[in-house]
């Protein structure tokens, strides 16, 4: 399958120094108060939900950075801020040196958009049900004005469909005529159509059957190698992340509690929350390891607990954890925010 698209790894940008994506002290606060009139009548205060708090990480070119965490930990909010669907309350996202929130860089950002794409969680919602597949896949090509020639667009679309192992004739069909896995491949074809170099994948396999998940993940890895893609991979499934990620960031209640290379996280999880997540994975290789069961649910992000947000569920919590918020301590390639780890208690 030697085609123009396949033969275009992003060599041009690969030479530039520094990380491709830089996330600096990213914070996102939502106003979840009741409407003004109701609030005033009831005398209730404004309610603010901190979805993401002071988050920083970097993604190097051609690596896969995975964000893991439970539902409600703010993973998807981070993804939406990184692609610019949501503007951060504080902090900023910088992609290839261009800030995503600086109003002075609007022109540079428009150019940048073409190099960023997103793959969504639910393939049943991410394709417009009224559009034919070829129009869906061609939308970024037309939106970015890559080519206005209809024959060229058609050729690219069938090339892309072949790339994701679909029949080019499928372009004439509507999304409802496909299965979940096929739809996700259509979504991948759309994401690739404008030759992006950075793709944000928001739980791309969690709506799919297990047998199809592997297929999609292998396709994504294969495409990464061939096209030199960089992924930000959001997932709650550690087994999936293990298969995909170069580095992993573990999120809890909108904060990064641990960032480490994938191998390290699975071999030596440091943060108690990471341990808990790993213990929850039913995996033969981990059988026999001592498990520390942790009860409870994620606390309400409107009123997060003081000190370390994990302390109500943490088996190692000490007095200091209840009052003082831990900061990330970097040792080598690993960064952990935990008093117990810092003090050597665990």
């Amino acid at each position, binding site marked *: 399958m030697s085609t123009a698209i396949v033969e275009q790894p992003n060599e041009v940008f690969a030479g530039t120094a520094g990380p491709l994506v830089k996330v600096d002290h990213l914070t996102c606060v939502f106003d979840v108060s009741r409407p003004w009139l109701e609030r005033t009548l009831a005398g209730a205060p404004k309610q603010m939900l901190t979805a993401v708090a002071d988050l920083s990480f970097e993604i190097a070119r051609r690596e896969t950075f995975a964000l893991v965490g439970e539902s409600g930990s703010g993973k998807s909010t981070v993804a*939406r801020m990184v*692609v*610019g*669907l949501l503007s951060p309350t504080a902090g900023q996202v910088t992609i290839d040196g261009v800030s995503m929130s600086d109003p002075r860089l609007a022109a540079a950002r*428009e150019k940048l*958009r*073409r190099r*960023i*794409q*997103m793959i*969504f*969680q*639910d393939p049943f*919602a*991410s*394709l*417009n*049900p*009224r*559009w034919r597949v070829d129009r869906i896949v061609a*939308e*970024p090509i037309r*939106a*970015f004005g890559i080519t206005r020639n209809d024959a060229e667009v058609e050729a690219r679309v069938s090339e892309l469909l072949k790339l994701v192992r679909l029949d080019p*004739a499928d372009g*004439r*069909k509507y999304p409802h005529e496909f299965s979940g896995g096929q739809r996700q491949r259509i*979504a991948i074809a*759309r994401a690739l159509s*404008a030759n992006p170099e950075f793709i944000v994948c928001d739980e791309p396999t969690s709506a799919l059957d297990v047998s199809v998940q592997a297929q999609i993940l292998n396709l994504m890895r294969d495409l990464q190698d061939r096209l030199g893609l960089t992924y930000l991979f959001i997932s709650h499934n550690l087994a999936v992340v293990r298969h995909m990620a170069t580095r992993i960031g573990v999120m809890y209640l909108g904060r990064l509690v641990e960032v480490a290379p994938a191998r390290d996280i699975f071999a030596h999880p440091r943060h108690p929350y990471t341990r808990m997540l790993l213990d929850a994975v039913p995996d033969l290789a981990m059988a026999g390891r001592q498990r520390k069961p942790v009860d409870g649910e994620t606390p309400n992000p409107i009123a997060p607990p003081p000190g370390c947000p994990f302390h109500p569920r943490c088996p190692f919590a000490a007095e200091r954890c209840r009052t003082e918020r831990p900061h990330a301590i970097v040792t080598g390639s690993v960064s952990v925010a935990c008093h117990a780890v810092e003090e050597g208690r665990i």
Partner: protein
Amino acid sequence: MSVLAQPPAAQAHRGLLARAWDSDIGYSFRTSPVAIGAAAITLVIVLATVFAEFITPQNPFDAAALNLMDGFTPPGEAGAGSGMYFGLGADSQGRDMYSAILYGSRVSLLIGTASVIFSLVLGVSLGLIAGYIGGRIEALIMRIADIQLSFPAILVALLVFGIARGLIHPSLHEQMTFAVMTIAIGLSNWAQYARTVRASTLVEKRKEYVDAARVIGLRAFPVMIKHVLPNVAGPILVIATINLALAVLEEATLSFLGVGMPPTQPSLGTLIRIGQQFLFSGEWWILLFPSLALVTIALSINLFGDWLRDALNPKLR
């Protein structure tokens, strides 16, 4: 590939009509006698009004063609003046009721259709904007819709009509009546479209295909038109069909009250108003036949709309 006999290429090349006939809605239509009957009657009436010139004996709007001596000719008799045969009788001016009804239905249907299009465009745009943009704009638009819905539609139409009359020079009144009626009826019905479209837009805009369009930098307006609108269009069609019947009735009401179409270019409502003056003097046909025409039009459009609503509602299938 599927096991169905049709190869995809052949499917794509089949006509739109053939595909519509085979679709779920086509099947529902074929098996519903009420829908077929209502659609057939509506079609016959629409065709008859469009080609009224060719199937009527006189032009009832042309004063020179009328013979006053034919006035009050009962149905099925020849006029005393012209000797012309009056199947549905003649009114006080010697106007053939059959011709007047066809020409009047044309006026009624034209105003109905135009006002439905007007309120549809207005309501759908405002509903899309309210649902998609949200915030204060949404609150403003929806509160106006709420206020409007708390008044009867006919009252709003009367108000608009009255204001327009005051603004337009009296010499232009007769020419402008059509436009004023359209706007008056259209303005009294937009809120229903706006509400429906806003509700569906709120659902659709949270779906990921909208995000996918925003990621590639599409602005709010193209996203609304290209992505959201096609997905909220289903219910609009149903409301528009049912509202067409309502708009025809509303036009008739206004004309009956004497604020609508003038007697020189009568609509069905005007004919009914003229007819009711003669009811107690025994000339029943001047009132009865336009009323029957109005009921038939409203009923057949309404029954068709009811069927369409059920056919498009997956829960009732």
